[in-house]
């Protein structure tokens, strides 16, 4: 008999099977994932990766008999009152004596949807597939984020733990050879000779003894290891480059922005955040809200509080420009900006905004997206879509070839498609 402990065997034996399965259901799974993004709270996206795929795509058909058709026999245990020849009404739902196992209930329902759980990784992979960050390589992606240590030669001072033994002894040996420090064998040979001479009463004895004394003296004066020989391994800190990004969320919070519009904007920001965190180790978010003046706020205030006042878009742009200059040098940071607004702006502000964008903001940004959020019901059918002030301002910029992407969104379900449009792979992307 053998006892084999398999518990330590590497797990995940059926991982290849799972990958094959996912590949098989990829289309449906992708659709389901996107569906869930539409309906579910985006905040919890991917946390609960339970998805349902229709049983159809993963069905394993076999020849099997139609249950309840034709002549059926059932042998059942637990008879209480029946005698031969009794008649029993058919249980509702067609043949099958009281759910007999032989009948194979549910044969018809084999179309049932199939549930399974995706890991967060798998979920996001499907979710963000064929999306791409625009102009990823536009500028230096790296700045000092953490410091690593690496070996950098030797030094004469350091902690004992870093003592480079072989290097130290090599120095010591060359010094000993150079200064002719008497070797141990030399001394012991001389001692032996002296002992011999003593025994034989040799007249050279005093000479020899003097010589030995000299050798000993010299050994003492030239130490085996001198502080001068010591070498230590040297480590020097070096910057570990880590790609990092900052995401500016700009939003109009004036009275005309309804909760619905803010919700749309929020969803878009969250998508962008998820996407950026997949690409960059480190993503910072700056929230700037504005009415006719702009302030940098925290997330809570950004989405929660409501302000009154006019609308001056350039104020937010000025604020962003200030923050960029102060904290996020475009040389070190990948800057993404998304602006959400209902499109209202003081008409006199147009040229100012245009100039700010063209001269300062757009050159600093990797990507600037403008999201115009509308009413839930959207533009009513039959009406010519009204172009807002801000839209017209930005449209002129975009037409002039500036790297500015703009989209209009009315309903929650449009957010994800619009997001995909903005970040779809270059070859699949029509514009922006």
């Amino acid at each position, binding site marked *: *008999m*053998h*006892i*084999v*402990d*398999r*518990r*330590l*065997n590497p*797990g995940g*034996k*059926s991982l290849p*099977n*799972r*990958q*094959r*399965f*996912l590949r*098989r259901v990829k289309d449906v799974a992708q659709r389901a994932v996107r569906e869930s993004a539409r309906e579910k709270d985006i905040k919890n996206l991917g946390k609960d990766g339970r998805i349902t795929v229709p049983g159809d795509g*993963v*069905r394993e*058909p*076999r*020849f*099997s*008999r*139609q249950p309840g*058709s*034709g*002549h*059926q*026999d*059932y*042998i*059942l*245990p*637990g*008879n*209480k009152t*029946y*005698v*031969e*020849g009794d*008649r*029993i*009404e*058919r249980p509702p739902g067609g*043949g*099958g*004596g*009281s*759910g*007999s*196992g*032989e009948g194979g209930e549910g044969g018809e329902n*084999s179309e049932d949807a*199939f*549930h*399974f*759980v995706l890991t967060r990784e798998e979920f996001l992979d499907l979710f963000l597939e064929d999306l791409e960050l625009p102009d990823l390589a536009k500028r230096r992606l790296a700045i000092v984020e953490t410091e690593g240590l690496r070996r950098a030669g030797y030094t004469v001072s350091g902690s004992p733990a870093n003592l480079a033994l072989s290097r130290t002894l090599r120095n010591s040996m060359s010094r000993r050879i150079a200064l002719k420090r008497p070797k141990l064998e030399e001394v012991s040979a001389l001692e032996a000779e002296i002992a011999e001479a003593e025994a034989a009463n040799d007249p050279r004895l005093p000479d020899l003894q003097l010589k030995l004394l000299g050798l000993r003296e010299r050994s003492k004066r030239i130490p085996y290891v001198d502080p001068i020989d010591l070498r230590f391994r040297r480590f020097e800190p070096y910057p570990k480059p880590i790609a990092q990004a900052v995401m500016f969320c700009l939003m109009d919070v004036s009275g005309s922005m309804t909760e619905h519009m803010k919700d749309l904007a929020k969803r878009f920001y969250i998508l962008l955040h998820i996407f950026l965190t997949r690409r960059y180790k480190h993503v910072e978010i700056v929230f700037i809200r504005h009415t006719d003046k702009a302030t940098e706020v925290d997330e809570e205030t950004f989405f929660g509080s409501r302000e009154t006042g006019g609308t001056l878009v350039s104020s937010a742009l000025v604020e962003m420009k200030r923050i960029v200059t102060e904290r996020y040098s475009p040389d070190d940071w990948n800057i993404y900006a998304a602006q959400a607004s209902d499109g209202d702006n003081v008409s006199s502000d147009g040229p100012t905004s245009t100039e700010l964008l063209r001269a300062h903001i757009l050159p600093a940004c990797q990507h600037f997206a403008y999201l115009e959020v509308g009413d839930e019901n959207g533009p009513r059918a039959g009406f010519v879509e009204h172009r807002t002030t801000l839209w017209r301002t930005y449209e002129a910029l975009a037409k002039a070839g500036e790297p500015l992407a703009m989209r209009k969104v009315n309903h929650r379900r449009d957010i994800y498609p619009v997001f995909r449009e903005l970040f779809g792979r270059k070859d699949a992307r029509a514009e922006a």
Partner: protein
Amino acid sequence: MVASLSRTKSTAPKPGELLFTGNDWDFETIRRIHDACEAVAGPELGLSWYPNQIEIITAEQMLDAYASIGMPLFYKHWSFGKHFAQHEASYRRGLMGLAYEIVINSDPCISYVMEENTATMQTLVIAHAAFGHNHFFKNNYLFKQWTDAEGILDYLDFAKSYIARCEERYGHQAVEHVLDAAHALMSQGVHRYPRKKRPDLASEQRREREREEHGEQIYNDLWRTLPAKTGAAKGDPALERRKALLELPQENILYFLEKVAPRLRPWQREILRIVRLVAQYFYPQRQTKVMNEGCATYCHYRIMNALSQKGQLSEAAYLEFLTSHTNVIRQPTFDDRSFGGHNPYALGFAMMQDIARIVEQPSQEDREWFPDIAGTGDAMGVLRDCWENYRDESFIAQFLSPKLMRDMRLFHVVDDPDEPEMRVEAIHDERGYRKMRRSFARQYDVAWLDPDIEVVDVDLEGDRKLILHHKALNRITLQREDARRVLQHLADLWGYDAVLKEVDPASGAVLVEHSASARPIFF
């Protein structure tokens, strides 16, 4: 990671000494338990078994094993991933407990036991799997005839690497298509009877000579005066020749495709062969569920009781064993909400107990029904003979006793679509015993349960259409949607059109006809 404990047997368990106390166990305990069980299984029960290999696994590994139909190594296919996801989901939500063990019909016989089991459960599992199932695998005629316990692991290893190589060479997609199609036809991929050996010249000559001698011996001049049969027997010679050439009719569809399908490439044929051989390997298990579980349950019951009597199990452990034993053999009645058909453990165990009773303390009724075994006194001898020579269907037909039918209160209901209500055909009384036993046995006849589908002809001169018949027993037709899909796979493999006719064997009328054309996915 092999941590085999090949030490000298210094720990031979002594009677009266507890094998373990508490729930914890280590390898030494397992070894002691195994040796104690062996001491009962050999001398007392007279079992014979393949050498045991007991493997300790985790819950996740158990799920892995579930997904690959219990085998320790298996080729990769998405359907296993699907099953894994399914099992995992229901396990995580606590809907499903995992089996305590899985045992593999191989030599050495591998039993997987879960690390979560208590020491008592390990004892139960070892008695059940490593001795009960193991004895059955080694001795039952179906397993002897159809499976190769020594070779199976090597074969699976070959299958796994062969399919992996095919994936590399021909692409995942191509291999997946073949496997999908082969899996769909898996239950039509077994030989139900040993095939005829191809006759060689010497034996043919010998048979011919014997036939002639026999004819001479029984020669009677009177026969000459009988009128000759009219030419009805003569069939179409072209058809006869075609059928002989293609070995038609053929119910092993995978075998037929592997040998005859005109357009398959060699590697595709090999994959069909792999799936077919795996199906064949599992075929005996489907036919012996009741007996196999009954044998294992009876063995663990005897062994556990013997250990308890020898004082090797504490009372706490014995009670724990009884709890899980009674859970295993619970049979809800037909009107119970948890009723899901007959529990093979319950039926098997009850029959084994019943046979032991008949052998040892027969009643007058038993003597009438089972004159061969009643009162012979050697229960284990009779049981071992059953385990060796029967399968579920023949076992029930032979050994289900009137007393057990009464105890289980079996009754037989017939559902005839032509009648407005279902009818109680027989109950557990004098008039019903034989009828009911016959129908009951038939429900365990795999050949009766599986749809009877065979390849009957190929239109070789025309468009190479493959013609199959389903003999719709009792006019029960196939599930349409599934039949259509499987037939599609079949046509893909065949490379040309395929048509499946569902025929009522009584009248010869065609009930339903399905047809499919090959899609260009293989060629």
